[in-house]
Each structure stands twice: as C-alpha cells, then as structure tokens.
C-alpha cells in the first residue's frame, strides 16, 4: 500500500498551526501562569509579591475547610452523576417504548437542556424559597422545614436536585439514541430466549448501551465538578457563608471575591491534576474494556 504523505514537511505543520496556537494560547499559557502564581503570594494590583514555595499548597491541605469542601465535592459529584444518569436512563427506556405522540414526549423531555445554569439556579431559588417556595411548602407538608441558605443539608439537597434536573435532558438524548441504535434483530432474538423484560434489559440492552453510558459517565463527572458553578453561585446568592461549596466555586471565592491570587491558583492547579487523573483513568483503564461496535 502506498503511504500518503506531504512532499513539503512544513505544510502539515502550517495546517496544524491554528489548532496548536489555540491550544497554546488558551490552555498551556494560562495553565503555566496558574502554576507559576501558585508559588507566590501576590498583591492583587500586581505591585508586590513574595515567593512562598509550596506554602499555598501546604496551607490548603492543612485547612480543615478545604478538606470539607473537597469532601462535599466528591459526594455532590457522585450523587449528581448517579441520579442524573439513572433517571435519564429510566426516562429513555420508557420513552423508547412510547409509540403514540413519541415525538412530543421526547421534545418535552429535552426542553430543559436549553436552560442556562444560572437560570436553573434562579428557578431553584424560586422553588426552594424559604417559607413560600412551592417545593418548600411541599416538604413542609411532610414536616420537613426546608431552609435554603440556613441549613447546610437543605442547601446541598437543593443544589443536587437543580443540578440533576438540569443534566437529565442531555443524558436522555444520548441514552435514547443509544437505545434506538440497538439492532431490532438482537432484541427480537432476546425475546425468544427470555420472557422477563427486566432481565432482558440487564443482559442485552444495558451491555449494548455501555459505550454510551461510559461516555456519559465522564461527561457527567465533569459536569458535576465544573459546570455546576452557575447553579451553586445562584443558589448561595453569592454569599459562601456556611453553604456547601464545590472546589471550583471555592477557586472563584478565594480568587475573585477574596483576591487571593496565590491560594486560588494553587487550587486551580489541584483541579488540573484531578482532570489529568480522570483523563488517564478514562483512556487507560475503562476505554479498553468497553467494546464499541
């Protein structure tokens, strides 16, 4: 077979250059700066600064609060990822079976996708408002006095519910198209072998959905870790107080509200490492075990 190639070795470089420069300018350069400033304590206006070595990192790991925020982020991510995947899968499986009016059902379920996170957070505030929010009143009916912004667990609950609600449509769309791409012949063969719908789902449908599910798992983890910023910011109304915070929100609070550039940079570097680990995990460990048809 003839190997395709460029006669001029500079041509491929030139063709790649736009992409490479975008990566360099918008990723490597800021990342480099973040690493650099994480070793300094700097006057916000940029006049004075002192090199503090790893102090910013040791301060973080020594802080009870930072560990608490990290702990909450883990629980929050697990809950949001699991719930939004599970509910979306259930909805997709049910929607797949609908015959009459299928299109309108699907459209309705996808609508929420178009809502921006801060708007979702704002809707959350309206629903969970102390005293007169509809959901607050609903909980009150069962004797649960829901206090958004006062009670830590209540605020966390609202954050999880709003974040999950916001993410379900994306997962739903992917699961639904995943389900529809499973060959009819396979499903019909399964019906002959096994009469139970539940076990057919777990034995046949779910494994065939695995590539979609795995892709969504990664997307949802990153969503819960990073993209819920708007929801968190709106629900805590810009006042961290004793509210549950995620790691990304803490970077913002310390860096942009408190103007502690060094401490905030150290936190972003930690998040970069986290993303790196996630990526390695994705490609090295799981990707190999998933079979794409």
């Amino acid at each position: 077979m003839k190997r395709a190639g460029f006669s001029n070795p500079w041509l491929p470089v030139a063709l790649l250059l736009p992409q490479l420069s975008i990566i360099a300018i918008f990723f490597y350069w800021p990342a480099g700066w973040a690493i650099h400033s994480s070793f300094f304590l700097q006057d916000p206006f940029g006049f004075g600064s002192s090199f503090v070595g790893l102090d910013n990192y040791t301060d973080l790991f020594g802080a009870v609060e930072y560990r608490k925020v990290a702990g909450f982020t883990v629980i929050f991510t697990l809950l949001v990822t699991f719930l939004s995947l599970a509910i979306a899968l259930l909805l997709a499986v049910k929607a797949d079976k609908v015959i009459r009016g299928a299109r309108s059902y699907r459209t309705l379920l996808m609508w929420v996708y178009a809502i921006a996170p801060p708007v979702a957070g704002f809707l959350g505030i309206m629903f969970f408002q102390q005293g007169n929010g509809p959901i607050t009143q609903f909980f009150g009916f069962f004797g649960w006095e829901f206090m958004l912004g006062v009670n830590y667990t209540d605020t966390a609950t609202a954050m999880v519910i709003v974040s999950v609600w916001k993410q379900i449509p994306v997962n739903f769309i992917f699961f639904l198209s995943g389900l529809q791409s499973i060959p009819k012949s396979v499903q019909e063969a399964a019906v002959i072998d096994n009469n139970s719908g539940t076990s057919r789902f777990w034995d046949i449908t779910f494994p065939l959905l695995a590539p979609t599910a795995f892709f969504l798992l990664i997307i949802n983890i990153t969503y819960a870790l990073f993209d819920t910023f708007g929801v968190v910011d709106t629900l805590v109304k810009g006042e961290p107080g004793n509210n549950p915070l995620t790691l990304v929100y803490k970077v913002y609070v310390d860096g942009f509200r408190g103007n502690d550039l060094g401490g905030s940079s150290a936190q972003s570097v930690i998040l970069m490492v986290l993303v790196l680990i996630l990526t390695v995990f994705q490609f090295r460990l799981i990707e190999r075990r998933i079979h794409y048809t």
Partner: protein
Amino acid sequence: MGGQLGETVNQIAQDFNASQDDYTLIPVYKGSYEETLTSGIAAFRAGEQPNIMQVYDAGAAMMIASGGAVLPVADLFAQNGEEINVEDYIPGVRYFYADSNAKMIGMPFNSSTPIMYFNKDALDAAEVEAPKTWEEFQNVTAPALKDAGYVPLSQSALPWIFTENFMSRHNLPFATNNNGYDGFDTKILINNDALKGHFKAVAQWYEDGHFGWYGTGWSDNARPFEEGKVAMWLGSSGSFGGLLQKVDFPFSATMLPYWEGVTKEPTQTFIGGAALFAMSGHSAEEDQATAAFFRYLTSPEVQYFWHKATGYVPITEAAYELAQKDGHYERFPAAEVGVQQLSLPGSDNTKGYRLGFYVQIRDVMNREFSRILTGETDVDSAFEAIETEANQLMARFAKTQG
C-alpha cells in the same frame, strides 16, 4: 450601586455634568461591591482603570496598602492647591479611609452605619419602646414582641453589625497594631469574653424565638421585616430611602443597642458603605476632573440631596447643618440616627480597622456564626476557628506586600 441607590448616583452624575461644561462623568455599574472591586483590579492590571472606583469598607485595606494604584484624595486636592481639613467631616468618617497619619486616601462617599429600625405598629401592639440596651431587649422587648406574634429581631450582616461594630460600640480594640492601621503583622482580637457573651446570648435568643436568622444574604434577613413579620431589624442607615419606598407600615429607627454589662459609655460606630478612590495613572486634566467631581460631591447641597434620597449620612458637618436647618429630621427623625451615632464620643478603637484579606475574614465569620446558630458548633470553638483563620489570612496578606 444598583436599585434605588443606583438611580440616585446616576442623578448626581447627571447634575454634575449639567453643572459645568469642562468635564463629563460617566457612571458605570459593575455589580456588587465584591464584583466592582475585582473588575476594578483587573482593569488596573490591564492599564484600563477608571478614574474613580467605588470600594467598600472591607476592601479598604487592600486599596490603601496598594500604594501605587491609588491617588490619595489628600494629594489629589493638594495638586490643585487645596487642602482637606478632616474637621470638616463628621467624626465617624474622618479616619476610616485614611492612613495611619490621618492622611485621607479615599473620599468617603456612601457612608452608613448599622442602626436599628423598628415597626411602630409592632412595638405599639406589644406596648414596648425600642430598646436602648441588649439587656432591655432580652428581658423586656423581645418577650413582649414574641407574645404579640412577631419575630422580635433580625439583622442583615453578622460580621458588620454584631462583630466590627460590636467592638466600636463598646470601645473595644478590634485588632492589634491600632486596629491594623500601623502595620501588617496584625492579630485579630475578637476572641474575647464580651463578644463571645454576645453570641452566646444571640444563640439563646435564636433558640427562644427572640431572634430570626434567614441565612447569610442581606435581603433574606431584611425581607421578613419589610413584610411585617419581624418587628425590629438591624440594617444600614443607608437602607432608609429604600425602606420608605418598600414598606407600608410606619417605621422609625434608633441607635444600635449595647450591653450595659460591658460598658456604661457606649461609643460611636464605624462607618460602613463605601468610598471613592481616585485611581492613579491618569493625565493631570483627568485628575483635575476627578477633583472637581469630589468637590461637587462633598458640597453641602449635593450631600444633603444624597442623604435625603438614600439615608446614607451626610459626610460633612456643613451638610449635616443644612439638613438640620431644612427641618429634614423633624419630618424624618429616623434619618438622623446614623449621623448621631457616628458623632458620639469616639476613641482609637472607633476610627476604623485595616485588615488584609478582610473579605475572606468576613466569609469565615459568616460561616462560623452560621454554624453557631444551626448548632453545628459552639461559641468558643467558633471564635477560636475565626481567630486562627483570620490571623493566617492576615499573615498571608502581609506576604503579598513583600
């Protein structure tokens, strides 16, 4: 500033532009105090700083420490051959935005102080007067108001009202180094029995239903008062104008109560609100324009207009006199409470405070105070945590200046 305050600021800018032909002032709203400070810093680093930036009390330390970014008001006026006489200003605002040599760095603008608003109908229903001391509140006012079906009290900023101004009201030092004015190696002094005693009482009030607390946000705590559920609300003297528009019950105000057990001679409180800082790096003509606007802004007439419209205190003695002469306080006695409180006897403890990374220190306070009220921690551990974290933050800030 947004809302009714923002409209008044725009009005002042328009009037200034109309009052002369040499300069045009363009006011820009950049969001909350925190957001304004952050975008101002970003603009400065990009070399695109505005001529004037409004910075709130908690950000003052950062502005004044960053010597190069700010053109001190005293210097700005000196360039134009004028001098600032601090005696022209009412006592409470003289030193808050000044350096340790009493040189004015920021131009005090929207100056407020925490005062106690009360719903007259509620107090009449309970047949009580607004309390002067916390002892009176605890023993007389609160139980009576609760029996009359009201939540007796709420407040909108625990660090500002129940901490910083607790210290100034009781003439107690807030931090070492002369409240932080004299250096960066400052330690916070809040871990003391007087303040802890106050928070133990507050926690008890909360438990007994004598105190309502609705989260960290300002308006979450103001709303129940505006809706008539809470009888008394500790807010800013600058909230007066907004309240006049919002509430449909008769209200008035009185000074921030104090503990008779701590002091028999309560002192003046700190000003809150914000100051205007002239940013460095502009041409002499533009600086002249800034000076002209500051002169216009501090003129008695403009100060009186601002005071009338918003409730923020008139910052000069002349403006205060004008308001008195005009009979403003006969019409609205509540409007005078802030000025009176800022004109009480003062001391070194009441000039102000200058603590680095103070925005974060306030966040730590808010967090720990919330935990006290929700029962997640006790008062002693909360104050230990605040002391430790505040001192760490200030030590970190000291290094940013190295």
